[in-house]
């Protein structure tokens, strides 16, 4: 899992992401995020990296 920056313009990505959610209700936003996760997972295409990303994302919620 990469932890060093790879995006040339984080602000551009962040803005696009927020724009995509603009005007959506919570349910639609959850749908959009779920679609995005699946699309991105296929771009990553590496089971091990994805497993590490899931672990990292879940870290604050591990009880």
């Amino acid at each position, binding site marked *: 899992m990469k932890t060093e920056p790879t995006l040339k313009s984080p602000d551009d990505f962040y803005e696009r992401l927020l724009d995509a959610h603009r005007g959506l209700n919570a*349910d639609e936003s*959850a*749908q959009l995020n*779920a*679609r995005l*996760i*699946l*699309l991105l997972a*296929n771009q990553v295409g590496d089971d091990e990296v994805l497993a590490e990303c899931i672990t990292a994302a879940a870290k604050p919620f591990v009880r």
Partner: protein
Amino acid sequence: MPEDPVVLPLAPITKVAGVTTGGAYELPVYPFVEPAELRGKIGRHAVVVVGAGLAGLTAACDLALHGVPVVVLDEDDTVGVRGASSRGICYAQKSLEIFKRLGIYERIAARGVSWSVGRTLAGSDEIFSFDLKSLPTFGASEQPPFINLQQFYIEWFLVDRIYELGTVDLRWKNRLIGCEQRRDAVVLHVETPAGHYELESQWVIDCSGSHSALRSILDVPVQTEHAVDRWCISDVRFRARPPAERWTWIRAPFNDGRAVWQHLMGDDVWRLDYQMAPDADPEQFSQPAVVADRLQRQFGAGVDYELVWVGPYSYRGQCLETFRVGRVFFAGDAAHVMSPFGARGGNSGIQDADNLVWKLAFVLEGKAPERLLDSYDAERRPAALQNIRITTRTTRFLSPQAQMERILREAVISLAREYAFARGFVNTGRLSSPSHYAESPLNVGPGGGRSVQNIALTLPDGKRGDLVDLLEYAAYRVLGLVTQPVDRYFAQELELLEQRYPVRFFRLQTAAVETSALPTVIDADEQLSAELGIAASCACLLRPDLHLAGSLDEAGAPDIEQALRKLLAQA
């Protein structure tokens, strides 16, 4: 799919013979014969099989082929389950290959429906389809990927075959009520209409299903996970035929947005299986009028049908902590149950029997030590856990519980309409494929533990046949397939091994060009070599259950002997 619904009827199963004409099946009834033990004759049997279901009858029939005398106890006097005439419906290629060996494949193929195309729909859109015949993992066998047939027919054919073989003591109306393990034998207490008796056996295979009495008597620990998902089967005969493909709806408009399965079985009967709402009343859901309403929504107002059978059910995941307790082995649903998706229950029970029988036969013949039998648990328990894991994943897709599970599934469905990658997440059942015993203590080399498809070849007598025929030709010994040149000296060494071990050697050639000191098998299109994954100069050991033990490159007789000893648990 409710491909293999084996567990937990929710309401008394309704045979709806009175509702429609000619719908219900007529099943054979077998006579109770007073067992010899009741007349005072007492001997020790080699093997007793408890339960004449799929796994038990497969084991008994296979033991008979190996020449092992066997007694089968069954509390009922017919095939099918306590009047529930319909259960498992999909028989996978590996099972069909086993049935070919047992001599009932032709009957199954004649009566059943062969299929390989599956379609998955959401709403009215197809989002995913497959053709199993195009996959190399299914495409090479002489048997099709799947045949659909009502389970009781398979059991019926097995009983017929067992009677033909004439060496199995099949005891109907014999109910097991007690069991004691001794050092050298098991004593079973059996109840019959003519009274109670005891019988002694060296080995017992418990195939008596998910409510096994033996399991409770021996107090074997069980891990159980209940699922909340519930379904209702309607077996229906139509005047106008839908296509003979496996159709699955993740969200069917005609079932209030819940899942539905549609499969053709034998006798032109369709298995329609409907996911019920969590709060649905199973009795009400199964009423003929309610079924009729559903069928009209699915097939149009004019649908012309007879209802053959209706029954609601739920399922669970369950696995014994060990598949062997002393001289008792657990197989089929007595050892493990799982959700029906992917047809992994019945098919894995058949594979349990397939795995155990050759080992028992070799031990009883004195060709292998009892230690060999430990490999049954070592191979089949991981296989069961794997099947439970795979079917549980399907359950989680088909019956999402948390809000986020529903959102993710929705995302998968919406993406799958458009993009190929997302279809891989659509999980309406991963269809039963043979277990790979990767960690088996019996593996001797590369490829060890992998199941080999039943490939066509030319037998040593020049006849066309397949691997299963070769196994019969070799009297169900281990097959030693040698691709390296065999001179007279090497052939003599191999012959010595044949005398000491249950193995038969064959020279595997692509054409009958060389004369060989060994019987020759011709693999003209090199399909078998490809399936075995072997090189030009090796010896390959194939177990009687057609799982590869491994291939040995440039092996001499001592190497082959060492491998045989490992395969037979002598090393």
